[in-house]
């Protein structure tokens, strides 16, 4: 660095930090993404309405409405009142509504009331399903756009 140089490395101008009395939420970049996917609806959050995701979605809260996702994980404490459409869905919570997916995994703690249309189905011992189970041939969820133009996984 030249001795005569006035401007060495300029001090980065730090953006004015928010100084409200309450703890302000930090900018988005600092927040890590959940390992299960791009979106997480945590416990105690209630959504009244429909969710449509082209990526991964994990729900631990309550949803009154329909859910469409590529990969969907319904946690043990979750309550869904509406239909579920996904390429892959893993259910550990309570679902009241029809399920239409490629791969369906019903876990031990799952309580499903509604018909399930599937390509691949597994039910863990203890999982409860009240409804019709229908195997759909090539029942890929065609409504979902493949991520980044790559063909969606699966047949």
């Amino acid at each position, binding site marked *: 660095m030249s001795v005569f140089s006035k401007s060495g490395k300029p001090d980065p101008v730090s*953006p004015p930090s928010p100084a409200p009395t309450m703890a302000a939420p930090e900018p988005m970049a600092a927040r890590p*993404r959940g390992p299960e996917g791009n979106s997480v609806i945590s416990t105690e959050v209630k*959504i009244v309405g429909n969710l449509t995701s082209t990526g991964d979605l994990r729900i631990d809260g309550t949803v009154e409405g329909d859910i469409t996702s590529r990969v969907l994980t319904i946690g043990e404490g979750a309550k869904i009142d509406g239909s579920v459409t996904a390429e892959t869905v893993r259910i550990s919570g309570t679902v009241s509504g029809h399920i239409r997916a490629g791969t369906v995994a019903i876990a031990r703690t799952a309580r499903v009331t509604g018909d399930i249309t599937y390509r691949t189905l597994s039910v863990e011992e203890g999982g409860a399903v009240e409804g019709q189970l229908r195997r759909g041939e090539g029942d890929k969820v065609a409504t979902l756009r493949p991520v980044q133009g790559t063909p969606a996984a699966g047949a």
Partner: protein
Amino acid sequence: MIGSSQASQPRTNPQGSDGRAVASSVIGADLVVVGNVEGPGTIVVAGAVSGDVRGRHVTVGPGGRIEGSLEASSVRVDGTVEGPITAEAVVVGGAGRVVGIITHNAITIEPGAQVDGRRPWRPAGFLASKRP
């Protein structure tokens, strides 16, 4: 798990009805919610919500969008909010855009932000006394 690392833990941990700390929710960039979202904790909106959002700390990320009302203890907008905002503390970042009335106790509008609407001030604690 979201919210569990030191760096991202808010100073005041939101508490659920059972007193335990509540995890953050993330409405990712690939998620669209048509309806209302309500929770006692932190909500990060990187996707789109067409409806009302109510939380404790709500951040609307750079690509995020809320069309509807937004109510929280603290709000940070780096994306777009079209609708009224009611919060004790509001920060609108340089890339943020708000069209609607912002009812607040403390507001910071950073250079570059587009804010269109009245910004009525309220005394500290106004939100707590408003809520049941």
